[in-house]
């Protein structure tokens, strides 16, 4: 639905004003590094904590953690589910984040990783729900919204991705406005498919900060 595109661009735009940490929590299928690049050095240990390496994005440094740093290209993750949660715990609780804000790219749907992460970060976290404006995605949105309410995580914005591609988008927008969060429309564009376009995310930055 565009979570990686939105989160990487949001983090890059935020890094103009804040020191940013970025976590790719799509443990099974990390791909934020395709837009942000991979750090040149590995994560190291310092004082019983991991120190996240940095990536340079648009001339600014961002702390970065992703399974892509550990999982070789083309290798699938075939470990027990509880070990996956252990990976999330390591990245969130056993990593020394030295930044003002952390942006996390979450995995799809409402999997264990989503629930577990929200347990670790609520109620300090804010959520941005990224969806496409068509009926098929409404039930996913309702479930995620329910989980956010349950975990007491503030929904700070809803991004309607590829708004210009769906003729029913205005009706979907009206329906989803009952969540009460600001709605940010993001049109599909060729440029967004080819790389970071942080300037297109100014409105979202204003809404979330």
């Amino acid at each position, binding site marked *: 639905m565009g979570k990686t595109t939105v989160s990487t661009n949001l983090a890059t735009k935020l890094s103009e004003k804040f020191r940013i940490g970025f976590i790719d929590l799509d443990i099974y299928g990390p791909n934020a590094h395709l837009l942000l690049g991979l750090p040149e050095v590995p994560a190291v240990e310092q*004082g019983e904590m991991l120190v996240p390496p940095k990536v340079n994005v648009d001339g600014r440094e961002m702390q970065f953690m992703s399974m892509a740093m*550990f999982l*070789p290209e083309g290798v699938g993750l075939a*470990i027990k589910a509880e070990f996956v949660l252990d990976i999330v*715990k*390591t990245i969130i609780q*056993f990593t020394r984040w030295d930044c003002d804000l952390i942006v996390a790219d979450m995995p799809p749907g409402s999997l264990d990783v989503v629930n577990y992460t929200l347990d670790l970060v609520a109620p300090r976290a804010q959520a941005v729900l990224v969806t496409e404006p068509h009926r098929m995605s409404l039930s996913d949105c309702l479930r995620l919204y329910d989980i956010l309410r349950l975990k007491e995580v503030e929904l700070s914005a809803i991004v309607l991705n590829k708004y210009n591609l769906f003729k029913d988008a205005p009706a979907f927008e009206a329906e989803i406005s009952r969540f009460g969060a600001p709605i940010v429309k993001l049109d599909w564009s060729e440029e967004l498919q080819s790389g970071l376009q942080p300037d297109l995310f100014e409105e979202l930055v204003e809404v979330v900060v």
Partner: protein
Amino acid sequence: MNPKLLSIIPKLVKLSLNQWWARRLLEQYKGINRSCQLILKDDGDETAIWVGVQDGEVKVKIGRYPATTTVTMDVDLFIDTIKGRVDFREALFHGAIEVESHDGHPWAYHGFLWAGFWDLVAQILR
């Protein structure tokens, strides 16, 4: 000691003669004691090797000793990783290598550090 390990003695000697990784380990673990119990399994038989950074020195011992992590794998897999036939990280994330934590850190914490360490070893042995 499992006789299969004889085939990698030249590699292990090359590793032990390289002081660069030991210096790097000592630098990273200044003031911290870290150790690993390596268990190599082979049809019910096992070889235990202890590797650690203790009081500013890198030490290797044969046998079981208290450690902050235990890494368990098949002896043939260990030989293949040392010979560069298998990527340690691939084996780890395919569940062929078991990493247990004994110091309160999550499993993955040690797994990530081991993945980085093994890259160093592979680099030296290449």
